[in-house]
Structures are given as C-alpha cells and as structure tokens.
C-alpha cells in the first residue's frame, strides 16, 4: 500500500475542503480522483505531496507520516502541480539539471537522467531553449519529465491535461501509459471523465470534500448507470415540458433533465429510440451512446462535472 488515508480532513478557516476521506492506493496502479472544481481533489493531492499539513485524520505515504518525514517522502515522490511552475529563467535542460540537485542527486546522475527524460518528453531538440516560448503541451511534458528526475515510485498528477488541445492531450496520455507500464504508480486528479476512463484502474468520485463512490470506471458505470443513454434535444426553452412524454418508454429506467437536453437511461438505446418514435415524440436530435463516468457523476450528485 503506497498511500493510505483514514478520515483525512483539510479545513481552511470555516471552509472544509476535504471532509474525512478514506483512500488506499496500491503499488503499480493508476488511481484517480474524479470530481468537479472545488471538490477537494487538489487539497488532497497537496496533502499527499507533503506540501500541505492535514487538519485531521491519518495519512501514510510509503508507510511514513508526512508530518514527521515530509522530506524523506518527497524524495520518493514526483509531483506535477496544476500550474506548470517551470523555472522560466532557465533553459529546458537546466530545469531538469537543477531539479535533480534539489533531490540530492549527483551531477552525473542528473545529467544522465535528464538526457533520458528529454527523449521521453520528446523535447531533445528543444533542450537548449528557454522555457517561456514552448507550447502548453511541451511545458506540461517538461513538468512531467522534471517530476520524474528522482525516479519516483509514485507520481502525482493534478489535472494533467487541463488547458491542452486534443492532440497534446493524446500525446500526454500516451506518455502516462508508458510510465504506468514501467511500474510507476500514478495518482491523477481530473474533472474530465474521458481522462479518468482512459487512465485510471480505480478511482474515487469526490464531491464537496467527500468520496461519493469508489471502484474501477467499468464498475462504477455498471453500478450507477445503465448500459446506454439516449440524449434528446427538443426545440423548446424548457426541456422539462417533455419529461412526461418520455417517461416510461421501452427499456428505459430513468430520465435526467439537463438545461439543454434530456438523458434517457436505458439498457437498449435502439429499442428506446424506436419506442419514442412510435409514441410520436420527435426531438430535434437523438443520440444513442454508451454510459460514461459523466453519467455516474450526474446520478450521484445531480450535477454535471464540467459546467
């Protein structure tokens, strides 16, 4: 067990950011914290990263207590914060060189490792450049490379792809998969359900500082949602007007109302659409799709992940 938390709590004055959560992360897995902004994910990550003391509860990382052995734990961690926080006065490779020294590595170790990591982050041809003009995706890859300089057993990634374009996200996901295959334990926070589904073996869904569900992405979808979803858009200001017409349609178990559409949860999307058509319900558009973690979150909290 790399990380274990019992009743972990973080408060800022009267505000409860993390409200007594229990979490266990095993060696070699990719573990996710999924939740909307403000759910307490980053506060949890900062406590695990030993840069924020817990207000209450018990936290152990590598079996050690951050309050006592913070520097020793941090020496075995890699940490990618939400903002890149690269050293913009230095070049790409200098960022890696000096970071290695912060971990007490020798110059030879740092240089060797930096060369490997530049290759891993696909930044070898930019190694002598200043950091500032790099693209967002490159900066994020450099941040990840930097966090790997000490060969960490556990890598913390706080919203790793927020603000990146789709292509840059896919490159980054590919790099993270490679790390996982090499046996690095990953802890990822995200408010993108596709990211959680792609990367995480196991995850917890957080809302208002609490954990509302836990399991593998597949697990959670089976437990809290149906196999398929039919999304209906109508030509009207208030989709609530159409709920009655849709309720009780074939194969469906539940209808959720969103500002711009109705979601019909069903075990057979095609049967549901056919029945709607037979009933004379004619939406502007009908989309049949598989259930995702977004649906799990909606079911558990009554809200969408990304507003």
């Amino acid at each position, binding site marked *: 067990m790399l990380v274990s938390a019992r009743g972990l709590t973080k408060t800022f004055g009267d505000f409860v950011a993390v409200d007594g959560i229990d979490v266990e992360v095993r060696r070699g897995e990719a573990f996710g914290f999924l939740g909307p902004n403000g759910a307490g994910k980053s506060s949890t990550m900062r406590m695990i990263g030993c840069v924020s003391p817990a207000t209450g509860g018990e936290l152990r990382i590598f079996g050690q207590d951050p309050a006592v052995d913070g520097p020793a734990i941090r020496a075995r961690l890699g940490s990618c914060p939400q903002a890149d926080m690269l050293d913009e*006065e230095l070049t790409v490779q200098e960022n890696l060189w000096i970071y290695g020294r912060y971990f007490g590595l020798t110059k030879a170790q740092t240089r060797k490792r930096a060369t490997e990591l530049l290759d891993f982050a696909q930044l070898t041809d930019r190694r002598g450049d200043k950091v500032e003009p790099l693209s967002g995706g490159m900066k994020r890859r450099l941040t990840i490379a930097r966090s790997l300089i000490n060969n960490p057993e556990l890598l913390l990634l706080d919203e790793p792809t927020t603000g990146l374009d789709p292509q840059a996200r896919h490159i980054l996901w590919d790099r993270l998969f490679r790390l996982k295959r090499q046996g690095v334990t990953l802890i990822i926070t995200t408010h993108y359900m596709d990211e959680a589904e792609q990367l995480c073996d196991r995850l917890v869904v957080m809302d208002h500082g609490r954990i509302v569900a836990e399991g593998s992405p597949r697990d959670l979808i089976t437990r809290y949602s149906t196999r398929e979803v039919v999304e209906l858009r109508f030509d009207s200001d208030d989709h609530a007007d159409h709920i009655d017409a849709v309720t009780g349609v074939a194969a469906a178990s539940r209808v959720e109302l969103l500002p711009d559409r109705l979601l019909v949860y069903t075990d057979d999307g095609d049967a549901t659409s056919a029945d709607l058509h037979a009933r004379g319900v004619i939406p502007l558009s009908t989309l049949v799709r598989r259930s995702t973690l977004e649906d799990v979150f909606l079911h558990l909290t009554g809200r969408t992940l990304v507003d």
Partner: protein
Amino acid sequence: MSGLDLGAPASRATGVSRFSRALPLPAGAGMARWVIARNAMAFRHGWVALVTGFAEPVFYLFSLGIGIGALVHSVRTDGGSEVPYAVFVAPALLASSAMNGAVMDSTFNVFFKLRYAKLYDSMLATPLGPRDIAVGEIGWALLRGALYSAAFLAVAALAGMVTSWWALLALPAAVLIGLAFAAIGMWATTFMTSWQHFDYITLAIQPMFLFSATFFPLSTYPEGIRWLVQATPLYHGVALERGLMLGEVGWALAGHTAYLVVLGVIGALGAARRIERLLLT
C-alpha cells in the same frame, strides 16, 4: 526511462530534518546551496545586471568624491581625525551599495519568484524546506554583494581613497551589511501582495541612504535627532565601514557588528517562517 537506480537521497534529508525538528526552526534539509546554484545558473543568462550593480557606487564615488571633494576639502570624522572628503565618503558608499544590492535581490527578485514564477512552490515539492529557500536566497544576495563590494574596494584603493590595512576587513563587513538587509528585505517581501508595496521599500531606503551619517558626520546632525540616525541599520553599516577603512578601530565596531548580525538572524528566521506559512498551507 529504464529503471535507473539513483540511490536514496532520503536518508540524508531525514537526518538533517530530525536535527532541525529538535530546534525551533522552520524545516530545511541543509540543501540551501542548490538554491544558490539555481540562481547562479539563471544569472549566466543575465550577467549584464552584474555590470550595473557594480557601476552605480563607482559613479557615486567619483561624482561625490571628486565633485564635492573639490568644494569640501576635509572633514572631521566622528572618530576625531581630519580626512579628505572622498576618503570620508567612500566607506559610506560601500555600505550603501551593499545595502542596495542586498535589498534589490531580496525584494524585487524574491517577490517575482514567490508570487509570479511560483519557484518556491516547485522547490518545496522536493526535499528542500522553507529554511533552505530563505538561507539560499539570502546567501545568493550576499555572494553577489560581495562581488560588487570587492570591485568597489579595488577601485577605491586604486584611486587612493583607502588609508588603512584594516580596510581588508571592509569586505567581510560589507557582506555582513548585505546579510542584515537581505534578510530583513526578504522577510518584508513575504508580506507584500502587489508591486505598489515596493514604494514602502523606497520610502525606507532613500532617507536611510541620505541621512545615516553617509555624506556628513553624525556630529553635524542636531543633537535631538542623532538617536534616530543611530537607530537605523545603515548607520551601523556606515560606521563599521568607516571605522575599518579609516583605521579608527575600537569597541564601537563590535557593537555595530552585533546590531547587524542580530538583524540578519531575525530576518532570516522571519522569512523562512513566512514562506512556510504562505506556501505550505
């Protein structure tokens, strides 16, 4: 990405942190030198700053020493000797430039790193602690200050403005002045939240530069405000440098030294404490 065995730097950090936990000090891993190394690395890309930091006090020296020195032929020091004006003013300029250099480094640069570059956040994600950051930043300000002071002393000596072998101690004294101001400056910076707050720094530095018995001896001030002059840190820096460079050595110099040491230690501890409070929340 092969599994490199890089050893565990953890053991060393733990030993040091155990030690520091026994003392009422902000945490550090004894790795401040890497903060200094980082600054030296960044400085290689902006070495032109070195030239300006050196040039300013030298310009002052020649403008005041030669210009005003032509009008004011000699000055009676507080130590009682009669010296040419340039000789009188050179130690004060050395002390002031040590102050200015230290304040620049520990306020503007630290503020930028703290609030904008988030440099310290990324350092604190490693085994480094807040004490390493405070000690490293102040240490860097001292190194830079020492370089400027050495160059200034060399110019002053070549121009014949240095009259005593005690002046060799003027360099460590300048580093001590740098320590006091860098530490207090860094501490003050941790309380600042916008660039406007730097006006307060200017407000503190400028009168000190003008009125710390810098350009005329303490005896010329009205008796009622001498205590005020003597309370400022720069006064002690100027008095220390002047005593050494003019060879007027006495127990008073030990008092000036103690004042600056105390200021430096208080400032360094305060800065480390504040970084801890600001960033490790």
